[in-house]
């Protein structure tokens, strides 16, 4: 089959696509053989596949959780037992999540193929991960056409015009969400529920997420009267397990921790970024506790780490090797500032209940500057040492 796609062959134009699929399935025919490169079985494709494996726990739990909250919405009963009727819930969740994944991959890969054929290079592997991340950070009830538009925007404007995988300055998946957030705020603002079928809910189902409810503490009419009532409704354990409404993949910290363990064990995710991001977020939470003043500011700092997209953002978004800082010290700074900013935006700006997304995008932009100053500081220090000797 291969000769047909080789240079001069009948289907030469389609070679990029052919090559993409064969190298995905088999070891590539050309491997690095000369020079000082590291010779290793782990190429970009294996890296990306590992990340996807790390996301599977989140995906499975997300499917179940989506199904659960869809049933809650249908029954109008917020206290539905989480673990009963598991099979039905999983299937209901599948019906919501599979179309999202299909649209995300369909649109994204089509664009990648078009650019690949035009520029004559193989399909960029990066989208394999982005395409899975996009459905995981979407609210479950987002219209499919919006996912398609957002994916197209993120892939073309966020990646292809910079030169494809490895050249983008912004995280592609987050960009697609940010696009939806600003373009269609009514269906994406993060304070409304992200469950399918909420229009037909019976009374008594407020249908908002933990963060949305918390943000109302900053306004005149909060959903809960005080923080105790909030913690009764969304206990720490529930939030940690992920039994709360939210975007598909972000709710369960346990599933995310499994993913984090896989990433750290294989050495793909950066421990420095994850750790410093969590520390930054926790410190900012404590600082806001000290400031106090209203209920949201006094939310115990550890709650911040388990609600909303904090955990998911930390593990899968902030550690994106392309857009994060590259230097060792830079990674720590990047994580610290990112975590602090995320909580700061989340708490102090009621218009943006999900601050993690904006914080990570902001740090993506800042990463090259951080790296630059880290490198410059290093150069200066070594020059000084040279002079004293």
């Amino acid at each position, binding site marked *: 089959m291969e000769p047909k796609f080789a240079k001069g062959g009948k289907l030469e134009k389609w070679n990029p696509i052919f090559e993409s699929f064969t190298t995905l399935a088999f070891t590539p025919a050309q491997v690095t053989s000369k020079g000082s490169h590291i010779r290793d079985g782990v190429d970009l494709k294996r890296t990306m596949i590992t990340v996807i494996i790390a996301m599977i726990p989140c995906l499975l739990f997300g499917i179940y959780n989506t199904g659960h909250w869809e049933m809650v919405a249908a029954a109008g009963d917020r206290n539905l037992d989480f673990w009963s009727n598991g099979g039905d819930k999983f299937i209901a969740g599948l019906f919501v999540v599979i179309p999202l994944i299909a649209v995300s991959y369909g649109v994204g890969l089509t664009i990648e193929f078009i650019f690949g054929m035009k520029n004559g290079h193989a399909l960029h592997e990066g989208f394999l991960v982005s395409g899975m991340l996009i459905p995981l950070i979407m609210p479950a009830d987002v*219209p499919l*056409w*919006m996912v398609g*538009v957002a994916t197209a925007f993120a892939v073309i*404007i966020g990646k292809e*015009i910079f030169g494809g995988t490895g050249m983008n300055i912004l995280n592609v998946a987050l960009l697609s969400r940010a*696009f939806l957030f*600003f*373009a*269609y*705020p*009514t*269906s994406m603002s993060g304070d409304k529920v992200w469950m399918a079928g909420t229009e037909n809910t019976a009374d008594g189902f407020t249908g908002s997420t933990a963060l949305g409810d918390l943000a109302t503490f900053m306004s005149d009419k909060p959903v809960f009267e005080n923080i105790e009532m909030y913690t009764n409704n969304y206990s720490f354990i529930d939030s940690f397990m992920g039994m709360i409404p939210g975007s598909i993949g972000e709710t369960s910290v346990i599933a995310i921790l499994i993913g984090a363990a896989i990433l750290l064990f294989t050495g793909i995710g950066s421990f420095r970024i994850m750790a410093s991001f969590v520390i930054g977020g926790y410190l900012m939470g404590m600082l806001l506790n000290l400031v106090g003043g209203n209920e949201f500011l006094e939310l115990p700092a550890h709650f911040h780490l388990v609600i909303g997209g904090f955990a998911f953002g930390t593990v899968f978004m902030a550690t994106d090797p392309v857009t994060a800082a590259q230097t060792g010290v830079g990674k720590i700074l990047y994580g610290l500032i990112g975590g602090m900013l995320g909580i700061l935006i989340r708490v102090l700006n009621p218009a943006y209940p999900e601050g993690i997304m904006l914080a990570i995008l902001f740090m993506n932009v800042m990463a090259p500057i951080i790296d630059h100053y880290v490198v410059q500081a290093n150069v200066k220090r070594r020059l000084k040492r040279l002079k004293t000797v």
Partner: protein
Amino acid sequence: MSEEKKSKAPSEPLFSKKNRKLVTDPLTDNNPVTIQVLGICSALAITVQVEQGIVMGIAVLFVLVLGNLIISLLRNMIPSRIRIIVQLVVVAALVIIVNEVLKAFLPDISEKLSVFVGLIITNCIIMGRFEAFAMANKPWPSIMDGIGNGLGYAGLLILVAVFREFFGSGSLMGIPLLGSSLPGEESGLYAMGYMNNNMMILPPMALVIVGIIIWVQRSRNKELVESH
């Protein structure tokens, strides 16, 4: 970007090839916005609706043509040390006229354009043309140059505004094209779940659209691509 070409009788020496080039060049391969990247600020600010874009384009066209003419007529009398001040006085006078006319006859649009009419004074295209062209050329070519650059600017403004108004508000020139989007009484596409793209109304998206136009233009004409 706009492909419109002025139809002119080529017989007169007034419309010689060189003079026509002064008009057509800024429309395509030497567009003040997409190639020289001047006058971006107002292009981002007032292109939410096509109507505003047209009015703004005409205003700049008027100021640019008359300003070029006046500067060109005065070019031998202006001492070079104070030429910027003289140019500023000319632009300021013209902009005040435009502003007053808009206020008198198009109060609605004048209000929407708000400070950006006044800011034509600082529009880089205008000062750039005065300095680069009118100070060194005769009145007639200066007028042609003014028309070309003014049209180039207006054309791009309108092009960007068409995209932004269509996707951002679902209308063109204020006429809704996709049905009614009023909550409760949706019709047309909106009844099927379509929503306007709010991002198009925000200035960053104008920058993205201008960027895409530049991208398309440069990939069609490789000569425009810088070497680095």
